[in-house]
């Protein structure tokens, strides 16, 4: 689904923040991406999301070399990738329901066709009674779950989550992890970037460990 071959990244003329990364995210796989703060987890996720291009190496997404993707094709690729940002990136002027429904609205679907699906998903993530409120009113955990619901609403092939449990307490972190595991069981590949060791200990999955810009893989 996503493959990296000898990928390196540097910002400007500084040293390489990521060096010689070679790995694959296989279909229906589950992996944690971990490493100390500043190790380059977010940069790696951005490379996977195609919002950054590498300084060197080859990135392939869904069998297509990233450098050959034209701007007009980019939305189609992005629709296959769900992303949960560390800072949620919910739109404050829209309700939770509208935020979660946004990817479907963008795809030109009619509200009548998706309204029940959005309600069901919000119920599933435990926000059934909070779908009318605006994000500024939501707690950190609720925002996190709303952001996850938005990433999942169109059943993406790959889910990239950047520190999805960074702002929540351990019980809620476990609950969110269970959401990802359920999603994985339904066929989605999941990549969770986290430095929370206790979270990783709760589920036996492949670990991609970044350290000083280099990657070690523990299958």
């Amino acid at each position, binding site marked *: 689904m996503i493959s990296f071959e000898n990928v390196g990244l540097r910002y400007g003329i500084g040293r390489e923040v990521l060096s010689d990364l070679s790995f694959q995210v296989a279909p229906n796989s589950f992996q944690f991406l971990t490493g100390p703060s500043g190790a380059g987890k977010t940069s790696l996720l951005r490379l996977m999301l195609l919002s950054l291009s590498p300084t060197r190496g080859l990135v392939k997404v869904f069998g297509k070399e990233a450098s050959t993707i034209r701007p007009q094709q980019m939305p189609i690729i*992005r629709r296959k990738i769900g992303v949960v940002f560390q800072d949620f990136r919910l739109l404050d002027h829209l309700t939770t329901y509208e935020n979660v429904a946004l990817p479907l609205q963008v795809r030109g679907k009619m509200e009548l066709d998706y309204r029940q699906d959005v309600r069901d998903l919000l119920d599933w993530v435990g926000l059934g009674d909070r779908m009318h409120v605006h994000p500024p009113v939501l707690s950190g955990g609720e925002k996190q779950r709303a952001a996850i619901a938005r990433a999942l609403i169109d059943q993406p092939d790959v889910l990239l989550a950047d520190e999805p449990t960074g702002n929540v307490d351990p019980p809620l972190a476990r609950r969110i992890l269970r959401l990802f595991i359920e999603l994985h069981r339904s066929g989605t590949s999941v990549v969770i970037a986290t430095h929370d060791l206790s979270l990783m200990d709760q589920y036996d999955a492949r670990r991609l460990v970044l350290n000083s810009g280099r990657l070690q893989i523990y299958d």
Partner: protein
Amino acid sequence: MTNESPPEVNSPKTSAKQKTVKPKRQPKPLRSGQSIVPRETVAGTALVFVIGIMTFLACLTLGAVSMVNTSAAKWQNDISREVTIQIRPFDDLEMEKAIKDASRIALTFNGVSKVTALNNVETARLLEPWLGAGLQLDELPVPKLLTVTLADGAKPDFAKMREQLEIQVPGSTLDDHRTWVDRLTTMALTMVAIGTTVFLLMMAATVTTVIFATRGAMAGNKDVVDVLHFVGADSKFISRQFQKHFLILGLKGAASGTLGAIILFIILGLWSSGSLATPEGDQISALFGTFSLSWSGYFWMIIVLLLVALLTAFTSSFTVQRQVNNLQNYRR
């Protein structure tokens, strides 16, 4: 359960409770009623003001060009309805016979409705600015002028008329005012060209302003654009979110500018019709005709209104699409 006491059926408190009907809860709306790009984040007042001024000036230009064009067409029409035959006196020329011959020749042509020879008084009045009052024409070899009036839309064969006059009436020449007509046509075309250039420059200034305003709106909504981009929105979807706001702003600005121009033309029209008898009014109307704009002039102003509004919407859409395409370019 067994410890619970039965309800006191007859107590007033209970009966009041029983009678109380709970009001039905209104379901909370799922939608905020806001568009994806909030209307208030697209800076409107300044843009509406600028578009208003540009449309006002564009409508004034259009109106002025339309008025000059109408006046030029009127002059052209007046001139083209008359030609002049001039007979220069010779020593042995019988002027009366020459005038009769020239009139006869002119009247044989289709489209000539009348031939009038200017009498001495009329000729003296024509020459008064150059030769002064009290002119004795009998003492001077002044050419005779014949005014040939043409029927509406008639175009006699002037070349043939000129040829016959030269053969049959020695010393006669035919002036069909072609030089004047050509000059007027050139002047009218120049005015239209200048007006069109000014109009295009104003539209270009409007487009440039809208481009800057759109970029500003996009910068102000960077979070929204980023999120839309990451959830898979294409450039057309994102541009539509901005386009509808800019269409409304464009309509507001263009409507105010057009309305201002229409009011100004109506006021100027009333003023010019009120000062028709004064020397200033006569001079202005001689140059520009009356300040009344034709219905087609007002129609074109409405077209300008719609054009500016659509131009604003399409410019913003195009700008957003370009910016988003840059954002979606992997090799940037």
